[in-house]
């Protein structure tokens, strides 16, 4: 099989085309929402939502077959978003307590799934996804769920960024912290729903977190974070699907598609991390600050608090 076959021709096969369409929409949305997850430090809540969604998927599957997956997961995810928003606001920071609640929901999901006829097959689909076997009539619900998440994030994006940067300042300016948190957690929940149906609940977190983390490494310019994360996620999904197809068909090794996509994501993150390490900060962040002053390359600046820098002569008058 040639490279062009894997990268382009493969997607003219209907199931590969559907997989690519759903993954591209999902990747763009997950990239945008993932930047906010990164800036707000909501990784734990995102992880919680992937657990909370599982019983919803399971109940939906048992009650309505595969057509019940998206509705069941959506209900469970929105309930989970409400619950986690409330836990967060109530100041319940006991990670153990939250973890206990979440593993409990996961076990409920497993028990529900065990009642289905095809226990092993159903469980595997829920945990590891089934991006290559999405039926045509499920494409629209998945795309819709993703686009609703994108719209909710986009409409509140200015205020979400304000809150992420300065929570008390945002409240003082009249923004409701509760409303913003509910909208963002619901958007994360909807991304989890769409992603759980494609790459599986166990791997959802990669889609939400890796693109945002890559964007933070590549740029320090606020509005570049979103296109960078979305582009990374889209290219990663495409290459992941193509790689899985090439190896499965060409080499006869049956690679699970969801895991291959995540593998490509993580590999991409490693490459960016290495590139940043080799080039130093100035190499990737192309536009210099307005003063034009040269700054030293600093390697992994995001990993350590920035020391206050001298004023470099401009504006300070010291």
């Amino acid at each position, binding site marked *: 099989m040639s490279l062009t076959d894997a990268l382009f021709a493969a997607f003219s096969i209907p199931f590969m085309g559907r997989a690519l369409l759903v993954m591209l929409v999902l990747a763009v949305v997950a990239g945008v929402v993932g930047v906010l997850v990164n800036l707000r430090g909501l990784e734990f809540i995102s992880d919680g939502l992937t657990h909370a969604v599982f019983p919803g998927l399971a109940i939906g599957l048992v009650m309505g077959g595969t057509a019940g997956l998206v509705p069941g997961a959506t209900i469970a995810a929105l309930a989970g978003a409400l619950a986690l928003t409330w836990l967060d606001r109530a100041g319940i920071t006991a990670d153990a307590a939250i973890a206990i609640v979440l593993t409990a929901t996961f076990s409920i999901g497993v028990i529900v799934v065990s009642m289905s006829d095809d226990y092993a097959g159903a469980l595997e689909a829920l945990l590891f996804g089934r991006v290559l076997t999405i039926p045509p009539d499920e494409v629209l619900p998945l795309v819709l769920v993703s686009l609703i998440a994108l719209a909710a994030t986009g409409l509140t994006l200015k205020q979400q960024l304000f809150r992420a940067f300065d929570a008390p300042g945002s*409240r*003082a300016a009249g923004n409701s912290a509760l409303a913003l948190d509910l909208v963002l957690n619901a958007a994360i929940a909807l991304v989890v729903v769409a992603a759980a149906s494609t790459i599986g609940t166990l791997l959802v977190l990669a889609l939400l977190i890796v693109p945002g983390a890559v964007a933070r490494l590549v740029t320090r310019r606020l509005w570049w974070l979103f296109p960078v994360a979305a582009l990374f996620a889209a290219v990663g999904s495409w290459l992941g699907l193509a790689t899985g197809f090439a190896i499965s068909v060409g080499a006869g090794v049956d690679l699970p598609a969801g895991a291959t996509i995540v593998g490509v994501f993580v590999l991409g993150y490693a490459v960016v991390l290495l590139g940043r390490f080799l080039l130093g900060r100035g190499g990737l962040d192309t536009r210099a600050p307005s003063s034009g002053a040269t700054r030293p390359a600093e390697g992994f600046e995001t990993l350590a608090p920035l020391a206050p820098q001298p004023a470099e002569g401009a504006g300070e008058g010291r």
Partner: protein
Amino acid sequence: MTDSPVLRLVDAAFTHPGGAGVEGLRLDIAPGEAVALIGPNGAGKSTLLKGILGLVPRTAGTIEIGGVPGDAQAHARHGIVSFLPQSADLDPDFPISLEQVVMQGRYRGLGLFRWPGRVDRAAVRHALETVGLDSLAARPFGELSGGQRQRGLLARALASEPRLLLLDEPFNGLDQPNRDALVDTLRSLKRDGVAVLVSTHDLELARLVCDSVVLVNRTQVSCGPVDEVFTLGNIQECFEGVEVEIDEHTVVVPGHEGR
């Protein structure tokens, strides 16, 4: 001072759900007037400011902002009042530039659906010029010095074109150039008719910028023109138990000076 007050408190009290609060507040601030809010640590200065913002519940009395009674007038309040928080605890690694921070001051006027336009960018530029940071507009916020960050946050408050500006300990930790810049900015705001309420430990700065003083220590101790309120008796009553020296020009409150 014939204008109707921008802020009027009548026997107001603000109380945190936990019980701590400040009470007995009677205060008028006219357009172009600056009032210093003075009291020891834990006297309820921040509580008073947050009460005016609606972030701490009012438990007694009345409040009027811009001539509108404070009850259920969140929208009116948010169109009028801006707040400069105390030594804002902001992540220096957050990827945002100074002008993007200042633009946040314009968001409440934009609502959910509109994005900043030409008028907003002009307002941001003007606010940055006012605080003397226009040459650093594109600089990442986290790379500014502490004093520059404070002035940047002041520019954000100015960009929302407030009629009442609340400042919580804005002089804390500022070096002389930044302190002077802040004093100049506050004076020019007063000339533009902005009402200012500023909490501070720095009694000398209260004299430099403010027309009136409110002394609080859990309750309002005294309120009036600077020279009438700054008496040894009043200050000692307010800073109970703290040794206070006062003469014609300076007041020294040990443990509070120069912070």
